[in-house]
């Protein structure tokens, strides 16, 4: 008996020793590295409340790396957006506003001169200058970086440093989307020596933003602390932001209810769960996304525009909005209402009003008087799946029997990029410039035009939109393109939805908006 006990104990002991001995030196988990989490952090300033100014944010996914130049995942952008800055930003009326550049001028169609803010410091203490701007775009355009935003900036011909705080961009040809593209974090400004020291920016970060990276415990949390030298006077108010990865929706809601986190994001379906809860505020904001039904235009049945238009007439978009989003969405084209003056009003178009008679007539004209059988691929998000189901139901009225294919993320992306679908429901972001919304998705060579759509006039308009600098003329160009895509119906557009932050009442001064949904610069915890 005794011998056995000793044996079992020694096995357990040996295993735990083995485990604790392994790689103890490099364990971020083991460090009690959370000064911000403790009581002693309360500041001496008298005007500050006696509550730790730490925002705890329960997020839905683990970030996939923190390099702003190579990562496009929302879970990552959310974090490095607080760490890095771009030259310029855009406000909710789609006007460009200063960020690292305090002003700019454009002497001719291909020349842009940016005057940088002086005294802006990177998190490593060094001042940011025109050199860093040049280096950052060189890094993006270097194929070895495998950066995502190559096509955003590859029209840059030369960058000339006029002095420490002035840089001149010369483009190869006029490129109207250039300013819009500069607002993207794909063009974030990074410090050269830091990148070279760490080889990449995947787990380390050093920017000019309001917060700096303190620690990243994989699959658990990312902690950002205040950048005391941030160039916007008096910002941020918070001492730290802690992002906790909580993939489970009910866990997120439970942690919010008990006050373990201050902020979470949930779909509209969760709204009734917090109704009447005095501790929780719901903060809705309009997204810049739209949902669509796409056709595989290489298939015979979808080659005929009449079939696509018939399906458009068969849909009741308001019913989709009422069922899926509880009425909280707007009928939208692929240039969303949030993009203001660039968007045409899809809701008023004949094609976007349900007309079963006309739908049946068109289907009969196309040679399918009794409809046909097809499939609808759905995936990624719950609202996408729900939209698929409503469409399936609505198409029954004109005899189209659609089967839903619910795909896992990898399968879905595969089907999307390789035309492995018949019809497909999806969601796109319209971007900050109409060139993105139109050319990227619907020009013949657009990289997100996976449908096989090609209209020479649309291509022509996309070219014109790129080189037309006059805003009014540009607007006319993109209006025509939108009308053409509407008529051709390579995709049918549904709606632009709302997103919801659920926040604790202790969290104040947070107003999410379309183009800056996670601006925590004025947030305080009471």
């Amino acid at each position, binding site marked *: 008996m005794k*011998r056995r006990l000793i044996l079992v104990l020694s*096995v357990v002991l040996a295993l735990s020793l083995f*485990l604790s001995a392994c790689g103890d030196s490099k364990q971020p988990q083991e460090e009690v590295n959370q000064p911000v989490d403790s009581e002693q952090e309360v500041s001496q300033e008298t005007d500050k409340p006696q509550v730790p100014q730490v925002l705890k944010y329960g997020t839905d996914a683990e970030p996939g790396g923190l390099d702003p130049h190579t990562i496009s995942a929302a879970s990552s952008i959310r974090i490095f957006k607080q760490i890095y800055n771009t030259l310029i930003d855009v406000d909710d009326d789609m006007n460009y506003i200063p960020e690292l550049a305090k002003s700019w001028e454009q002497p001719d169609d291909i020349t842009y001169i940016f005057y940088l803010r002086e005294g802006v410091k990177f998190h490593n203490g060094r001042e940011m200058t025109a050199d860093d701007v040049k280096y950052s775009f060189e890094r993006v355009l270097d194929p070895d*970086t495998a950066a995502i935003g*190559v096509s955003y900036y590859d029209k840059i011909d030369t960058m000339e440093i006029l002095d420490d705080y002035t840089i001149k961009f010369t483009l190869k040809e006029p490129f109207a989307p250039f300013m819009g593209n500069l607002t993207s974090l794909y063009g974030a400004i990074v410090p050269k020596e830091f990148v070279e020291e760490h080889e990449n920016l*995947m787990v380390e970060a050093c920017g000019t933003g309001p917060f700096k990276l303190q620690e990243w415990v994989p699959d658990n949390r990312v902690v950002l602390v205040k950048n005391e030298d941030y160039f916007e006077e008096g910002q941020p108010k918070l001492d730290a932001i802690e992002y906790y990865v909580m993939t489970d929706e009910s*866990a997120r809601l*439970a942690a919010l209810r008990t006050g373990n986190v201050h902020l979470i994001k949930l779909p509209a379906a969760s709204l009734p769960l917090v109704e009447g809860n005095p501790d929780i505020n719901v903060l809705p904001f309009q997204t810049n996304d739209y949902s669509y039904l796409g056709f595989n235009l290489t298939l015979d049945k979808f080659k005929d525009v009449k079939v696509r238009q018939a399906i458009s007439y068969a849909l009741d978009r308001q019913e989709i909005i009422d069922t899926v989003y509880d009425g909280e969405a707007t009928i939208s084209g692929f240039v969303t209402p949030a993009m203001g003056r660039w968007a045409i009003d899809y809701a008023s178009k004949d094609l976007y009003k349900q007309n079963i008679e006309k739908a049946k007539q068109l289907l009969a004209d196309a040679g399918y008087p009794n409809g046909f059988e097809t499939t609808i691929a759905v995936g990624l998000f719950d609202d996408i799946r729900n939209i698929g189901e409503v469409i399936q139901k609505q198409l029954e009225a004109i005899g189209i029997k659609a089967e839903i294919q619910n795909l896992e993320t990898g399968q879905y992306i595969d089907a999307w990029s390789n035309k492995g679908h018949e019809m497909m429901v999806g969601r796109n972001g319209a971007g900050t410039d109409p060139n993105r919304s139109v050319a990227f998705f619907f020009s013949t060579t657009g990289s997100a035009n996976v449908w096989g759509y090609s209209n020479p006039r649309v291509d022509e308009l996309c070219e014109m939109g790129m080189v037309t600098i006059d805003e009014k003329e540009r607007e006319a160009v993109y209006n025509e393109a939108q009308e053409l895509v509407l008529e051709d119906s390579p995709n049918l557009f549904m709606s632009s939805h709302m997103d919801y932050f659920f926040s604790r009442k202790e969290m104040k001064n947070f107003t999410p908006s379309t183009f800056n949904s996670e601006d925590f610069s004025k947030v305080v915890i009471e």
Partner: protein
Amino acid sequence: MRAYIIRRFLTLIPILIGISLSIFLIMQLIPGDVVSGMLGIEANPELRANLEKKLGLDRPLHEQYLSWIGNAVKGDFGKSFRTDKEIFPEILSRFKITFQLTVMAAVISWIIAIPLGIISALKRNTIIDGIVRFIALLGVSVPNFAFATLSILFLSKVFKYYPPVGYAGLFADPAKNLKIMILPAIILGAIMSGSIMRMTRSSLLEVMRQDFIKTIRAKGASEKVVLFVHALKNALIPIITLIGMQIGSLLGGTVVTEQIFSIPGLGQMVLTGINQRDFPVVQGSILFIAFVYVVINIIVDILYTYIDPRITFKVGR
């Protein structure tokens, strides 16, 4: 005996080669790849080519496999596609967390299951037996994600309680660590205990029916001695087999619980790796889990000989 152990450990080699090959191929076969995942909607041929070159995915398959497995033998599992971090140290630090959770869950399940199983066997076909068997049936049939979600809902709504959100290591902050781990451990333990309870009951009943128990009773031994010294000892073999298998599968199977409670264990690492199509991470961790599973099974087999001297292992010629 020594020859047997050596031989068992030698069988590890073909097993691990087989596993590494199949996991490598499975990762190639599943739809979606890391490049599409990372580029998403932005993918175009130029960006794809750049990224594939950077990640070494432009090489032929057999070359990718051989270079991976060649380094893995030396303990170098490569770097994550996503974060560019060394994988092996990460696996070890994650495994510690999962190991702790597993041990806690296992101990909790024994504390619940073995006494109840014994009581149930002794009071066979009484009300108490019925209740215990009902609980055991719940344990066997309720999936742990359902139990976990319900507990979270119940605790947060009724008691306004939710475990701390930021993970802290056992040695760094024991109090916080236990606060985080205890709830998931109880949930896993309660679920595990169902089958152990049933196994204890039936195995004990089986032994109690045997002739040697009659002999011992006839010798005049008290019921306590009969039960704890003789019967239980003989009933242990199937229980230990079951426990070994459960621990083995828990080490790779706490995924759902880890996810719900945001515990950064090995299961989460595999899951995030799969979602992000981070092949080296998935391959490395699965290989490691398989290794641990096989080793635990070998340890359990060796333990048999200590518990039941009738079992000896001879190496066949």
